[in-house]
């Protein structure tokens, strides 16, 4: 029992420490939480398209290694996503509703998202974040943290399948315009995948052809 209490204490303390170390404090007041949710959802609702550059970092903690990838990101309501990797090699991924297209060098593949749970989840997380529907997702419990310049939503998976993949997912949002700047997917092993979005353009027209799966 003593061990259990100690373990729980360490877990709670480490979570609090993580948030504090980045200058974040938990938002516990229900009214503050509701106010943020309302503003974030309202702004996300106005978002029809997003065009952005991205930097992806795979942090392998035990190996003290970081694998960096870069590329371009396009999103269009309701469920269209295009990620074009330029580094470390050319790789194109299009998610169009329930379908997925991948171009890797000369190799093209078309898949159904229904049979690819992990891509389905990654797509869902990104789309939920940019559409502001993240608070309505039953697959996660949500905690909110606040710093001087921004907010961080911490998503903790509820379902067993998701728990196998992620410890939690942190979504960093700037206070300036409530845009998502960073998504950190933390694994149980201590490794994480971090997506940084830069040079964001909101609601510029993006042709549907960019998301077409032929």
């Amino acid at each position: 029992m003593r061990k259990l209490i100690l373990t729980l204490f360490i877990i709670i303390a480490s979570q609090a420490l993580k948030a504090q170390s980045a200058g974040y404090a938990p938002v516990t007041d229900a009214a503050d939480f509701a106010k943020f949710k309302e503003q974030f959802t309202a702004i996300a609702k106005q978002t029809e398209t997003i065009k952005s550059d991205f930097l992806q970092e795979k942090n392998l903690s035990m190996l003290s290694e970081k694998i960096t990838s870069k590329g371009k990101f396009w999103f269009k309501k309701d469920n269209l996503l295009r990620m074009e990797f330029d580094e470390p090699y050319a790789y194109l991924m299009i998610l169009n509703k329930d379908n997925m297209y991948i171009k890797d060098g000369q190799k093209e593949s078309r898949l159904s998202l229904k049979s690819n749970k992990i891509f389905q989840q990654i797509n869902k997380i990104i789309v939920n974040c940019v559409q502001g529907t993240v608070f309505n997702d039953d697959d996660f419990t949500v905690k909110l943290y606040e710093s001087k310049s921004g907010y961080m939503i911490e998503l903790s998976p509820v379902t067993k399948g998701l728990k196998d993949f992620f410890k939690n997912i942190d979504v960093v949002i700037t206070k300036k315009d409530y845009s998502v700047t960073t998504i950190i997917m933390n694994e149980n092993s201590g490794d994480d995948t971090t997506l940084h979005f830069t040079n964001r353009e909101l609601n510029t027209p993006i042709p549907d052809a960019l998301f077409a799966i032929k």
Partner: protein
Amino acid sequence: MRYLLLSSCILILAGCTSVYKNLQPATGDINYIEKFRPDFNVALYKAEVDVIGHHLSGLLLIKTLPDSSVRMVFTNEVGFKFFDFAFTPDGGFKVYYVVKQMDKKPVIKTLKKDFELVMLRKQDIKTAYLAKDDSSLYYIIKKQKGFFCYVTDKGGDTLKRMEIASPRKPIVQAIMKNYTNGIPDTIGISHKNFSFTIALKRIER
């Protein structure tokens, strides 16, 4: 009918013949093969794996840690991890993580053996011997079942291929070439008894 029976017998006998039966004993230093052992300080590869109609692609990072264990992490392009294995200094093998779909004994055993072959690990030189044919030298290391075989040119300067073999024929063939500071640029592994290939191409960082 008699001809049919005769030709069937010949075919069956030919099927039983070992592809290694014409090798001649050779003399030389068996330890010479060690020079082809890759020295993975840290290397990143673009990896493509094709297994029975399924295609996986992504990045394979291989790193030697301070305790001299060799760690291998395979993720897809969006960072999703397929496996995280380590070859430990005492010759052991540790699974740190493997995705549920790959978490099957035969899959892990096959991957372990394939990488043992290309990393020239767990080689018991005491049971090793040299053989040759007209064009190649064969460094043969006996295993419980069959053997590992490293085939070089006659001078032992170029590693032509590596094989995991039954007494009669290769089960796995692999290549490893274009070394820079001990790290190969290209590694290819191909299974002969079922459709399974691994292709690795080094990425400069």
